[in-house]
């Protein structure tokens, strides 16, 4: 009986493989969560009596603020650059992605240097008007509100990116139809375009929010206690891993709640486009006044999120670059790029495997496994780092004991303390990014398309080559570039898991910045930005290209059935 059941599992080798991958990728998080069962002593009582309400409040408000900020910036700019014609649109299309390349803590440090009480902006105002402290109001940058703004500025591109591709994929007919049915420009936006783009916007938002919850550098510097800083403090200050794990559980419950709420609100609505566009997406040609407003909205977003901080960093870098570009700098750069590229490729392959698997058998365990594998994105890097250390060190120890007894030599640590540990941590942390992107790409390839292809006599391999690959190419590129940029910025896990003498740009920038040597950190920080520019520009170009090519290649079909039917 048992044997037969085991054999039955072989009948679904892919389901088994998926479960295995999900198990490996969720192991680090599960390991840490299992600390919940450590006796937590009276620390938990202490936390709930003192700081826990503050953690909950700040984390919740931060999420709300960043959600509002990223939606406002991301959706607005995506809509404008996709659907409207105004001067500079071509530039904004790709440039609006640039803030993605700036690590959140770097933009936080940079703006603080400019805007805090002792910074040039306020000092100038005081000199100009003869004010002193208390005579005037100026927003405090190092505050919860400041953290919301900083995180929104660097995270809105997730929403922008996904919203924009969703808008691009929308059929112009849907909008035409809505117009003939009496919708104005605005109501056609709110009643047709926005609901149809909702899954993509939510996917982008969820990435931004997960990154927000996992952020350590910004909130730490701004003195805003959140779950992430609380976990760090409880673990390494109070020395209580059990209570820290309990905090992590609450954090995950938070995320679960948010997504459950979203899913519930969406209920069973499904959003299939029939992806045909026999003519390019119509754009609104804006009147000069409106064009000016559109231009300003995009320009301001770009200026605040990218141009200003980069100029400030450049000013600092000019002063210190000579010193900071010493011999090791090239190695630093190659390490960072190689690590990010390798991680991106592996991550996309894993995402493809999982996404296709889920498409083929969407059974409950498989769906659960896919969710589980993507869970790590919201977990602070340091929690993942410790979660990776534990099983790898154990495995190393077992292997080492075995070779010692069997062969009389010691393998030492061949998994932990090497790049293996680091790569595993990255997969755990960033799989959600590639998975979300690949899944949303795959969603475009409706089962109807497969069936049509098969009925026209395509073999599976042909179907993949002629239909899936061209249709997925954009998503795959997006996924790998997002992971690439994320890895370049990653800090806490890289810091503690890396092998000897293995530095990355983020490590260098962070060490100098936390040592309050912002000027010295600027060269490394700018290099991260510069290295991030290449993929970001590639990405933007590919999106822009897809808009025109696909419109020509996809053959004519009758009117689309529905766009975003709500049930």
């Amino acid at each position, binding site marked *: 009986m048992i044997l037969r059941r085991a054999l039955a599992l072989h009948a679904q080798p892919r389901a088994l493989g998926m479960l295995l991958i999900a198990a490996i990728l969720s192991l680090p998080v599960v390991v840490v969560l299992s600390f919940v069962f450590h006796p937590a002593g009276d620390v938990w009582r*202490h*936390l709930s009596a*003192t700081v826990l309400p*503050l953690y909950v409040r700040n984390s919740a408000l931060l999420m709300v603020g960043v959600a509002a900020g990223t939606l406002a910036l991301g959706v607005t700019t995506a809509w404008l650059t996709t659907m409207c014609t105004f001067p500079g649109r071509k530039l904004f299309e790709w440039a609006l992605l640039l803030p993605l390349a700036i690590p959140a803590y770097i933009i936080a440090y940079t703006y*603080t240097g400019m805007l*805090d*009480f*002792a910074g040039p902006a306020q000092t100038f105002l005081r000199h100009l008007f003869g004010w002193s*402290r208390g005579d005037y109001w100026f927003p*405090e940058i*190092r*505050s919860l509100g400041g953290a919301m703004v900083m995180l929104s500025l660097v995270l809105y591109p997730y929403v922008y990116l996904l919203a924009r591709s969703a808008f691009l994929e929308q059929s112009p007919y849907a909008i035409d139809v809505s117009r003939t049915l009496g919708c104005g420009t605005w109501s056609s936006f709110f009643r047709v375009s926005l609901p149809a783009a909702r899954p993509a916007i939510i996917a982008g938002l969820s990435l931004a929010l997960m990154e927000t919850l996992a952020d350590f550098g910004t909130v*730490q*510097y*701004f*003195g*805003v*206690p959140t779950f992430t*800083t609380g976990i*760090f*403090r409880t673990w*390494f*200050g*109070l*020395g*209580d891993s059990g209570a820290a794990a309990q905090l992590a559980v609450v954090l995950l419950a938070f995320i679960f709640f948010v997504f459950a709420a979203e899913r519930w609100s969406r209920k069973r609505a499904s959003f299939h486009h029939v992806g045909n566009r026999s003519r390019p997406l119509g754009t609104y040609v804006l009147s000069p006044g409106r064009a000016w407003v559109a231009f300003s909205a995009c320009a301001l977003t770009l200026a605040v999120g990218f141009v200003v901080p980069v100029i400030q960093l450049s000013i600092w870098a000019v002063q210190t670059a000579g010193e900071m570009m010493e011999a090791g700098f090239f190695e630093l750069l190659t390490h960072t790029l190689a690590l990010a590229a390798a991680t991106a490729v592996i991550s996309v392959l894993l995402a493809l495997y999982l996404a296709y698997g889920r498409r083929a058998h969407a059974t409950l365990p498989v769906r659960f496994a896919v969710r589980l594998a993507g869970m790590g994105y919201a977990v602070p890097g340091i929690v993942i780092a*410790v979660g990776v*250390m*534990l099983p790898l*060190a154990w495995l*190393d*120890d077992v*292997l*080492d004991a075995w*070779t010692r007894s*069997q*062969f009389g*030599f010691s*393998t*030492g*640590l*061949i*998994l932990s*303390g*090497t*790049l293996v540990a680091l790569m595993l941590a990255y997969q755990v942390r960033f799989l959600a990014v590639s998975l979300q992107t690949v899944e949303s790409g795959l969603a475009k390839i409706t089962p109807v398309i497969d069936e049509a292809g098969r009925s026209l006599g395509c073999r599976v391999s042909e179907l993949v080559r002629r239909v899936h690959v061209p249709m997925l190419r954009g998503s795959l590129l997006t996924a790998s570039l997002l992971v690439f940029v994320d890895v370049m910025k990653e800090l806490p896990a890289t*810091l*503690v*898991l*890396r*092998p*000897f*003498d*293995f*530095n990355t740009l983020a*490590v*260098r920038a962070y060490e*100098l910045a*936390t*040592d309050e040597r912002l000027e010295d950190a600027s060269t490394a920080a700018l290099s991260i930005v510069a290295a991030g520019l290449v993929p970001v520009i590639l990405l933007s170009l590919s999106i822009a290209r897809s808009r025109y090519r696909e419109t020509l290649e996809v053959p004519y079909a009758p009117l689309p059935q529905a766009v975003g039917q709500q049930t």
Partner: protein
Amino acid sequence: MQRLVTVALTLLTLVLGPIARGDSVVNVYSARKEALIKPLLDKFSAQTGTETRLVTAKAGPLLERLRREGRNSPADLFITVDAGRLHQAKAAGLLQPVESAALEAAVPVGYRDPQGVWFGLSLRARPIMYATDRVNPDQLSSYLDLADPKWRGRICIRSSSNIYNQSLVASMIAAHGQDATLEWMKGLVENFARNPAGGDRDQIRAAAAGECDIAIANTYYLARMRNAEPGSADHEAAKAVAVFWPNQDGRGAHVNVSGAGVTNAAPNRDNAIRLLEFLVTDEAQAWYARVNNEYPVKQDVPWSSAVQEMGRFKADGLTLAVLGSNNAQAVKLMDQAGWR
């Protein structure tokens, strides 16, 4: 088959393993940042021919890594910037005692572990700094006095997550007991000019700019600002602020050490001890003083001129291991006092 496995594993070890064992290697886990330790390691390598390998990270996670790696850990030496962490490492059984005449001669008894498990390498002091145009130093006396209502809304200090503040509070607990420390902190928090945020330099800048009148910060941050380019904002800010040494009639100003200990599993124990001994030579001690403006632990090594200008002072004679044993208590009390 066995041979095949052996060969495969050996290859794997060679390819993946951090080649930790060897005659002339020493592996360092450092919570001290690369810029402030690598140059010394390079000097050591140049002098002895011993290769040094380095990983830097925050102390807590690094200790966790050491703990998880257990007997297989490649690390030989653990370096950190706070006595509390050194004590935690010792308490967790991650370090081993070392006997070395050179170390014992160079490091005063108060700045090393009684069993020789860790040794202080440099000293840092955390005095009161005040804006000279707004504060009369005669009004200042001790850390305890900072809770006095006369300082309402006038004090800048960074967050309680910072280990230097945690150690300061740990020393207060040792001197005054828990209850008095909690009361003191409640008063101190009342006196904050703003929610704690930023680093030590930010507190000094805020005091200079008038956001507050008093900042609490480590001296080397002020020294670095004074050494900044003349005319720069930091240089100007540093000129507006002076150091007041608190508790000079009593136990003395709060001090802490950066220090190091040889790990329990050290595969290159002798090299690690040699490196430790190198770090307390006059040359290395003078480097700490000159480059980072810390106080050398070794008595006769000169201070940097920026630090000399801040004056001699009486340091708290507290056994520094107490900073570690009181750390968790300090964090809890800070939570209770509402020190963010």
